[in-house]
């Protein structure tokens, strides 16, 4: 049945960079933009996606012999919505601050293209270990992208990194604003769009470079 499908280990590796959901597949853009003005938001979102994606992918993989084609999407949606609700309640109960900050973007994971795409591409076709590692790999890739964007935005926008949890301050608070000032724009929507654009550009550029190097070798 497995026609040249990638092995579990390959699935894991691919999710992190070669098939990074945000940077290579340009999926899941909404949360990527919305929650990355602080590292805390980015990591919490990535954690929620890790939970939902892993549970959904594994469950779909378990159910895969029973899936009827025309009910497939329905089952996916049902599964995802349930796990998202659980994640949402869990955050509201134990990380109330983050729950308030992330607001509707946690429930929006339900329609996140990454998760449906993984259920389609991997969960409904491959074994449980593959589905599990695929989910973890993709989530790590997602976390990597979110972390990269959030790092740029938080450092430039607030002058901090994990400012709320760890209190890391990169610009001394006493710096005169004649010399340098944080860039408020990075916290606002324009900064989100521009950061992601530049990151995508950089990744594409590096990818093209690597490819050229390989071809010439």
């Amino acid at each position, binding site marked *: 049945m497995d026609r040249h499908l990638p092995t579990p280990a390959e699935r894991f590796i691919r999710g992190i960079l070669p098939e990074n959901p945000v940077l290579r597949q340009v999926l899941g853009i909404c949360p990527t933009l919305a929650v990355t003005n602080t590292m805390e938001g980015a990591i919490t979102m990535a954690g929620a996606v890790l939970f939902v994606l892993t549970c959904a992918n594994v469950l779909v993989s378990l159910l895969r012999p029973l899936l009827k084609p025309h009910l497939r999407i329905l089952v996916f949606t049902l599964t995802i919505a349930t796990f998202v609700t659980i994640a949402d309640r869990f955050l509201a109960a134990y990380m109330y601050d983050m729950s308030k900050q992330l607001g509707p973007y946690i429930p929006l994971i339900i329609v996140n293209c990454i998760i449906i795409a993984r259920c389609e591409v991997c969960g409904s076709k491959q074994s449980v270990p593959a589905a599990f590692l695929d989910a973890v790999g993709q989530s790590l890739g997602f976390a990597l992208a979110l972390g990269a964007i959030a790092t740029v935005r938080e450092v430039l926008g607030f002058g901090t990194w994990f400012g709320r949890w760890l209190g890391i301050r990169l610009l001394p608070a006493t710096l005169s*604003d004649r010399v340098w000032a944080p860039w*408020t724009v990075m916290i606002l929507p324009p900064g989100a769009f521009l950061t992601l654009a530049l990151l995508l550009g950089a990744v594409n550029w590096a990818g093209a470079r690597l490819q050229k190097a390989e071809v010439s070798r």
Partner: protein
Amino acid sequence: MTSSASAPPTGGTTATAAARPREPRLTVAPGPHIADRSLTTQRMMADVLLALLPLVAVAIAQFRQYALFQIAVATSAAVIAEWVFARMRGRPATLWDGSAAVTGLILALSLPATAPWYSGAVGAIVAIGVGKAMFGGLGQNLFNPAMVGRAFAMIAFPAALGATAYVNPTLGLDALSGATPLTALKMSGNVTPVLPLVLGMTNGAIGETSALASILGGLYLCARRTASWEIPAGSIAALLIATGLPALVRGVSGWSPLHDLCAGAFLYGAFFIATDPVTSPLTPNGKWIFGIGYGLLVLMIRRLSGYPEGVMFAVLIMNALVPLINRATIPVPVGGPVPSPK
């Protein structure tokens, strides 16, 4: 073949003319064989710099070394950025067409006198990098680079470029001791007399204070046909009509349509920024629409939004609409549209 730079050369192959022993060097090229040389791209940019001189003069007269500082920082940052980005893309250096200097100067003139060094520098780098180079360089950008840079800097450093940045009585310059006319109106309802607005004796961005200087420079640009007159005409007409009709009904007390015209950056924007050929429509009808839209948006933002002035936002929003305007104003050829083959 997507790049415009790789187009065939216009002058080139030397013919082996067999007519005469003296053999002049002859060129073969597609027609027309004569060109109106009074206006080249380079000349257009030089025109803009020339037309900006009155504004620069007023700025320096009023804000002294602060104006010089802003102009120096933003213009040199823009020119250096242009060079760096052209190198990065492996494109021929485009410094000598002067467009980067225009972008830098227009940006500089839109800053408050006391803006810290990084606001002009970041603004100029974003203007050229994000506003221009990322779209493919001269002629291909969809948004006015100077306004992209200014918007980025303004939102990045709201304290340095926002309303509070203008008032700074401690620097010993009279020009910097009062609120800008638009801020004074918005916050406390104070009305600045018209004459200082016309001459340039109020506070504000260094290039915007004198309506007269903007008009002088602007008329020169329109007369040279470097700028399309339809855009300032449309915007001024729209502003005067939209403010004048209510004034006719209710009567004028205090802030008049003339104030709206002369205060803030409206005229500077109408003559120098909205007229950026690259980011405005192609056809005369499109230019009218663009100008009217600009005028109305400036007014709407001044009156209704949280910001005292709307020039920058109005220009960017109208830039975004240019492709739609261009599409809606495709002229009908003389003699009607091409008949469909049948």
